[in-house]
């Protein structure tokens, strides 16, 4: 296999997996913080248990999600040296925001879980909110990079003037539509994933809360999704064209799944009144599959280009690493071992969530 294509495909795989995990954890983290807050405010034990159950998703998957973020960085710097160097020299501020957010978010998750019941509840609620909100600053940084890849406004300014664009990436016309689309997607996905998880436990009230959150944000997507699509048409016509032609089948499947998701969510809200939650089990997997397809459209449709400048594309090869022959066996062995880590993680998630090895009430 061509090293450049392998780099692009490997990067794509890492981005998709990273985004799947973050979509699960950002939304469920927010729900968990809200429920913990409500528990302390109302002294209702159900909220406390709900918060703890939703939090299991984070405690199991957040570090593994971070692994894929690291893989993205190494693939970028190793395979696409020029792109990484140009991005860090230009988009310094958005990347710094994302890094600071990661630094707050990941320890806050571990601290939230392991100090639960050990410190004053009001202090714990504060840590939970810090954990939840800091997560949304990660895409606030990195989505600015994605917006610039599709419409390099700030990068163009830098290359023309030699001056660092500072906060200019946040004036990129693609950024805000992409960011809001992302935020709504992750909260919606988080709600549906929590609903699926609690459906396994027949927690009717929990399913209802998860579905309501997922559905409200899914309805918001009916406005934000097309808005992003139109903004691509205006500012990134090459990507827009690829999404609507070569990648139209994927777009079509994604839209069908969204429709199915909406129908199933409404059906669940009806059935929970009768205490039935079985149908909710499918909401999480469906929501996650829309995340995968959305990211394939947003990133994969760019190939064979890496950066798009309106109707022109800069091919992947322009940014690739030709400073040495890429040692393909090393890359293949690494990919195989990443498979092992996925298997180990899947086993951990199975034991933690399905077999309920991670107790809601900590052992004294």
């Amino acid at each position, binding site marked *: 296999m061509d090293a450049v294509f392998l780099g692009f495909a490997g990067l794509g795989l890492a981005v998709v997996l990273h985004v799947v995990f973050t979509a699960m954890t950002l939304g469920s983290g927010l729900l968990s913080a809200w429920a913990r807050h409500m528990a302390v405010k109302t002294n209702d034990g159900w909220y406390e248990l709900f918060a703890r159950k939703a939090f299991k998703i984070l405690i199991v998957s957040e570090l593994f999600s971070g692994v894929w973020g690291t893989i993205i960085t190494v693939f970028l710097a190793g395979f696409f040296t020029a792109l990484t*160097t140009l991005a860090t020299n230009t988009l310094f501020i958005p990347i710094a925001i994302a890094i600071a957010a990661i630094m707050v978010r990941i320890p806050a998750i571990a601290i939230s879980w392991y100090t639960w019941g050990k410190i004053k509840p009001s202090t714990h609620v504060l840590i939970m909110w810090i954990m939840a909100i800091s997560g949304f600053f990660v895409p606030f940084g990195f989505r600015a990079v994605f917006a610039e890849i599709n419409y390099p406004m700030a990068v163009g300014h830098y290359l023309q003037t030699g001056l660092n664009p500072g906060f200019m990436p946040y004036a990129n016309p693609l950024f805000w539509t992409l960011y809001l689309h992302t935020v709504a997607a992750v909260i919606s996905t988080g709600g549906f994933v929590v609903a699926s998880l609690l459906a396994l436990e027949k927690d009717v009230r929990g399913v209802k809360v998860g579905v309501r959150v997922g559905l409200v944000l899914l309805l918001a997507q009916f406005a934000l999704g097309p808005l992003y699509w139109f903004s691509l048409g205006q500012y990134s016509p090459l990507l827009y064209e690829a999404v609507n032609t070569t990648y139209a089948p994927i777009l079509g499947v994604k839209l069908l799944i969204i429709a199915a998701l909406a129908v199933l969510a409404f059906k669940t809200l009806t059935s929970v009144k009768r205490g039935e939650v079985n149908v909710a089990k499918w909401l999480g997997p469906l929501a996650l599959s829309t995340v995968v397809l959305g990211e394939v459209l947003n990133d994969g449709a760019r190939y064979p280009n890496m950066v798009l400048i309106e109707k022109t594309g800069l091919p992947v090869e322009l940014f690739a690493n030709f400073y040495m022959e890429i040692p393909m066996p090393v890359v293949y062995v690494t990919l195989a071992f990443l498979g092992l880590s996925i298997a180990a993680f899947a086993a951990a998630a199975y034991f933690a969530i399905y077999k309920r090895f991670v107790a809601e009430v900590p052992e004294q």
Partner: protein
Amino acid sequence: MDEYVLMPLSALGVYFHGVFVSLTFGLPVAIGAMLWKWWRSGEVIYLRAARIMTAVLAVNFALGAIFGTLVEFGLVQVWPGVNLAIATFAFTPLVLELIAFSNEVAFLILFIVTLGKVRPPVSLAILAVYAGFAYFSGVLITAVNTWMQAPWGTGPLAQALYPFMPEYGPLAIDVPKIVALKVAALAAGHPISILVQQPGLSGKVGVVLTDHAVAMYSPYALVSIFHNIIGATLIGLAVALAGWSYRYFKTGDGKYLKIITPIATIFAVLFVIQAPIVAHFMGEAVAKYNPTKFALIEGAKETYYNPLIAWLAYGDPNHPIVGFDRLYASCEKHGDTTLGDVAAALGLGEYLSQLGDVDVSNVAALKLRDLCVSDLQKAESRMPLLHSAYYVKVTFAILGGLAAAVLFFNFVKAPGLTALARKIVSAIGGERRGLFLLALLTVLGTVIPAVAGWAVREIGRKPWSVYGLLYPSELVTPVPYATSPGFLAFAYLTILAIGFGGLYAMYLVATREFKFLELLKKGAGVG
């Protein structure tokens, strides 16, 4: 760009990463010992100890991972010139490190989730796999760091500029291309990343490294790997030892002695391997591959004779301790050779034209002798700091070793030595206080040598970031915000708040009981 204001920031991130990585390496050994004892004895005290240390490990691992992320991003963002190394010498170690990191995380999660739910040997096996990947990660990252100390695979390149330097392994680079990149950046007066960021440049320049794995078989890397990993493991064990000794000191409960004994024993055995054996080979490697660093730590402005140091460093008591006087003298070998002469001899014109419209006339007259002397002067200015740091390190390592020996013989019976150890413990305040004080001394005897040792290792390679080849100014970011007071304040506050906040959280996890579970129990209907 003032790169010197960014170095302490990077160092702070590296130090915090080092703190957490040390626990990541040391705690699995202590937890493993507890699981083994639990398996063999069935006593639940060992499982409880393993659980508490696992909770601390989990929080610690999250902190270590994010500081690792910070260091990694710090490299590509604050020092983007390093991207050229990541694309070449560091490519294979860093890609392999993905194996280590991803599996380390996955098996740690599996271990945490299954601890106490599966049989002890299964937990032990999962822990061993996790620890194996964690150490493998340490091996690879140390290999990358070591390449910056001794750029293996660059052959005589550094020696061509600095005649006192050795050759660094085989010549696995295309010298004219590498030199052209450096000269072009030097002539333009901007960091190397301004060149590297150009789309299409790597295609024009082509292959600069012919052996992708060369950084991994450096002898300096081999000894650094053992030195760093054992050093970090010792710190983790010392912290665990101090924590449990403190509990014993406060409560006098004999069950804590059962926990302390295996940890103290393992600590002492590892210390014996580290201090007299591995550290000796590390010193030899520094003397051989980092002549300026060695002169700095030995305070050798002038060459002198010291049979003990010479025997330890060179294996020959009659060998002189080479000082800066000889290093300066070697610069004279350049005569009046200029950078322009080198460029002409290497035929750089062809390569410079690939890099764009590069005019090197402003640096052509630079004499190599002046460059050599100027860099030696910059290195020599750090002598008081490096010399002091090194001997502080040695002193505390000796104290740590003595504490380890007393603890070992206090628990492991040896004719004469056990009685002596117990007398010492008794003399410093009795068993409870004495054991705690000795455990504290093991913390000081590992942490201070590590802190001072990293300072020696990193500051000692200055004025270069890649020893003998690249300066910090060539690797630093061109972004002006990076050195603005606002960004620096933000970065320092974030790092310090998370670092110290994380340490405090680990303390809470280790020491606090569950006091606020009523609401959760009410929700779960269990109490």
